[in-house]
């Protein structure tokens, strides 16, 4: 009986499975299309940290990089919190 009532009034808060499928697909296809595996992303992240650390003191654990879809192009988006700039020694 509760199920029937739920069907009548609808459980609006729960996301429909079709929508979940769409969102999961969008994420997985960004990686498929760029042919970038999670391992490569991890390597890329470590390399970026190594390069930037030469110039800045960055928060390594707070860093996020991801591929994002923007209209008809894919962008590499990096969010790198900086603690402080190294002073130039030269």
């Amino acid at each position, binding site marked *: 009986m509760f199920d029937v009532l739920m069907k009548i009034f609808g459980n609006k808060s729960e996301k429909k499975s079709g929508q979940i*499928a769409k969102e999961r697909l969008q994420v*997985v296809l960004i990686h498929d299309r760029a042919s970038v595996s999670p391992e490569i992303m991890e390597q890329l992240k470590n390399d970026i940290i190594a390069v930037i650390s030469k110039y800045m003191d960055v928060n390594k654990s707070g860093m996020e990089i991801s591929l994002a879809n923007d209209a008809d192009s894919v962008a590499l988006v990096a969010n790198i919190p900086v603690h402080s700039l190294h002073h130039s020694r030269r």
Partner: protein
Amino acid sequence: MCEIITITSGKGGVGKTTTTANIGVGLAMRGNRVALIDTDTGLRNLDLLLGLENRIMYDLVDVTSGRVPYKKALVRHKRFDSLYLLPTSQIRDKSAVNPEQLVQLCNEMKSDFEFIIIDCPAGIEQGFKTAIAAADCAIVVTMPEIAAVRDADKIIGELGRADKENIKLIVNRIRAQMVEKGDMLDMADINEILSIECIGQVPDDEFVVTSTNKGEPAITMKDSLAGQAYKNIVGRICGESIPFLKPPKEGFFTRLKRLFGML
């Protein structure tokens, strides 16, 4: 003028062979001379869907290896006499035919047919590469299901890498009621994700099962919704502009019964 169309999907079981059979029959019903080539070597099925399994004498591998001319291997359909099947071998594997051989065969056949439809095997290996080598147009078949759409995307990428630019989409086995409830990817979602021209939306239809049982494609059945969708696809392939079918509305009592779990 002959158009060579390859029916492909990446994922297995989405309805490539069913689509090939229906489009082939539909084009022949309009009076075109049509050849269907099954390239799913080792897993031959197109003959069964057309009801021609008992008439096969020679196969694709016999032709490409030069044992017999292609005309000897063609099987004419019993009801639609401008439709021919070139079946593939059931005992050889996908490496038995290479892309150059299929291109050469299609060039030979071109002058005898208005359409050559190639049924591609699942996967993205050699069999796929052979099947698309000669194609002027590729039709990608998918289903409103996460794995099938992902594989369709992969195939579209592979087709692009093979310089195939004329790519069309057919979405098969759509369950209108699930779409309406939001429990299935809808056409807007799929078009947004794959962004290639869609020429067909085929509903999930029990007629497809019963017609396959009998070896008569659903397009020959008046009452089949999927058959109607295939007829529209054939019209669009012939350049007509046909609106997509609206899903049938559920009646009040059906809805009420579903609500109380009686359906």
